[in-house]
């Protein structure tokens, strides 16, 4: 990051003037934390005693044999508290908020994972908490909303625009400009105005800090490739970070939705539908029309269904340091299925995108090489989406009979 928050041509901080001062303070606090070795130690202690870090690196023997190529290792962010890598970022920001002396946090959420993590952190740190969530997402992710509320957060359904993630981000910014003095906006991914992309990456880099040791222990050398799904880009940046200066090839997998040529996807760095733009406070590749209006995106995975992408990834893409691929909804369901059956592990729909690409490439990689799939989260909390996507008849019956019970009683 240069001193204006750019990574090559990307990033920056395109923020309303009212936030200028707040961002100054955030920059200062972040730099102070970065330069204070005790801060990272405090962070590690928190993650170790509250959130099960280091998360395991699992050798997927059955999948490896099945594909007959590279040794497949899975980084298990599903076992992180709240079920995804999101907690890494959120807990880190929680420590910063404590240092800044603020008493209230807000966050946007799409899949609900980041909202869950933020509500959790707020409960743990004793902060007030408001979560903005597109109305569409509130509807598809009701269980997450339920838990956020139970942890004491206020969940506000956002009824503007496409009523999904990007609109929740806009709404969170609106709250922030109104309540800057008391409030910190816990940005959920490596996007947004500087210093968020770098800061979120820093917290998420705990993933690659761990895998680098783990893979050496389990495999004796660094992996040939690492695969991560790319929504905003935080789990990808986190799992790539400490390999950027190594020979390991880094592969980001975007949401191919109904296909990269269908217009129904969320692929920004793979494919040709995106173009450079500035929105939500930063410059990156956006899915937008000729006039710069953002397009609707599509993915079976709510957490990948986003118009922008980390400016750091745009930079690495431009510099060809990270390769980008896309996985379609259909491929994702198949990879999920195989992983459950062969390894007894349930990746989130988001994470399953990374599995798709790894499965495509594993057979072509030598048997003495390792690849790591970053399993960003667990899928069991997505039961409503996954059972629905599988069109499971007993699930439907179950829901219908539950509903009948509720209707007759109310």
């Amino acid at each position, binding site marked *: 990051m240069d001193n204006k928050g750019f990574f090559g041509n990307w990033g920056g901080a395109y923020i309303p003037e*009212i936030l*200028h*001062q707040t961002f100054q303070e955030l920059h200062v606090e972040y730099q102070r934390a970065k330069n204070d070795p005790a801060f990272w130690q405090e962070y590690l202690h928190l993650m170790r005693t509250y959130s099960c870090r280091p998360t395991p690196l699992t050798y997927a023997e059955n999948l490896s044999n099945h594909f007959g190529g590279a040794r497949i290792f899975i980084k298990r962010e599903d076992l992180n508290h709240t079920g995804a890598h999101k907690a890494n970022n959120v807990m880190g920001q929680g420590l910063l908020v404590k240092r800044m002396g603020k008493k209230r946090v807000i966050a946007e959420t799409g899949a609900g994972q980041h909202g869950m993590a933020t509500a959790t952190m707020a409960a743990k740190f004793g902060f007030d908490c408001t979560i903005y969530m597109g109305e569409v997402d509130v509807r598809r992710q009701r269980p997450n909303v339920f838990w956020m509320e139970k942890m004491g957060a206020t969940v506000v359904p956002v009824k503007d625009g496409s009523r999904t993630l990007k609109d929740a981000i806009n709404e969170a910014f609106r709250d922030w*400009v109104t309540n800057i003095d008391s409030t910190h906006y816990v940005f959920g991914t490596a996007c947004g105005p500087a210093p968020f992309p770098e800061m979120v990456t820093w917290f998420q880099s705990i993933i690659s800090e761990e895998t680098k040791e783990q893979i050496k222990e389990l495999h004796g050398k660094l992996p040939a490739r690492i695969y991560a799904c790319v929504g905003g880009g935080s789990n990808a940046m986190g799992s790539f970070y400490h390999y950027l200066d190594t020979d390991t090839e880094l592969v980001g997998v975007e949401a191919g939705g109904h296909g990269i040529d269908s217009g129904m996807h969320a692929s920004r760095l793979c494919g040709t539908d995106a173009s450079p*733009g500035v929105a939500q*406070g930063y410059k990156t590749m956006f899915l937008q029309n000729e*006039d*710069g209006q*953002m397009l609707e995106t599509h993915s079976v995975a709510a957490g990948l269904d986003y118009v922008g992408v980390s400016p750091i990834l745009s930079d690495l893409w431009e510099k060809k340091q990270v390769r980008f691929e896309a996985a379609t909804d259909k491929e994702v369901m198949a990879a999920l299925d195989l992983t459950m059956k062969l390894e007894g592990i349930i990746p989130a729909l988001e994470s399953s995108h990374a599995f798709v690409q790894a499965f495509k490439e594993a057979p072509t990689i030598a048997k003495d090489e390792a690849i790591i799939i970053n399993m960003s989260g667990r899928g069991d909390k997505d039961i409503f989406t996954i059972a629905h996507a599988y069109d499971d008849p007993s699930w439907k019956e179950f829901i219908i009979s539950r509903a009948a019970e509720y209707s007759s009683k109310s």
Partner: protein
Amino acid sequence: MQLEQILRQRKEKKDILLMTHIVLGYPSFEANREIVRQMVENGVDCIEMQIPFSEPMADGPVILKANQDSLANGTTVAQCIAFGAEMAATYDIPFLFMTYYNILFKHGEDRFFTEAKEANIKGLIIPDLPPEMGENFFRLAKENEIAPILIFAPTSTQERMATLDSMGQGFIYCVARRGVTGKKSSFGDDFNEYLARCRNATRMPIAVGFGIQDKEDIEALKGRADMAVIGSQTIRLVDEQGPEAVGPFIQGLR
């Protein structure tokens, strides 16, 4: 003549100037035409025309909805610029474009400035483009003699105000409070102190916006600000009573 000069001239004859706001293509360009006509005929001194954007992060619910509806109607940037040109050619007051940076960026900043200049647009308000991010923008503004209007916020330090003052042109837009457009502000002691700070920090005219809704608000600003900005209030009015209500409303403001 450049924006600051125009405003100073107009100010000579008035206690306070009035700037109003419209969202282009909302409810329709047809309605925009009628609204602008009523505004100008009732003494508005400057109009900011918002080119709609899908992600208007600094706007509150009223303007947000207007942006979305306009886009849903199919409003394009080209239409907006053409409309701006038409207005500037028709009425003898300064017209500004207000929009978010991506509209310029995606259109091409060069091209946007060229077209805006051709349209005789006097200034640009881009709430998500702080000076640090706008090197090219400020260069082009200067070259094209279109005023880049910057914003003071209640959170701005003296130092920050100085920076903004040094980069801005035309006037300084002082937002009256924290938050987004469209909510009522209260003009108490804090506000007066803030306005004094603004006045101290710039020699340009100062406009006050965010939440100005009636004659009373405007009275309160007289002698302290050069221009009052009416934003969401006219949109609400048009939504509720149609474009023909705008004239009487403006007339009633002073």
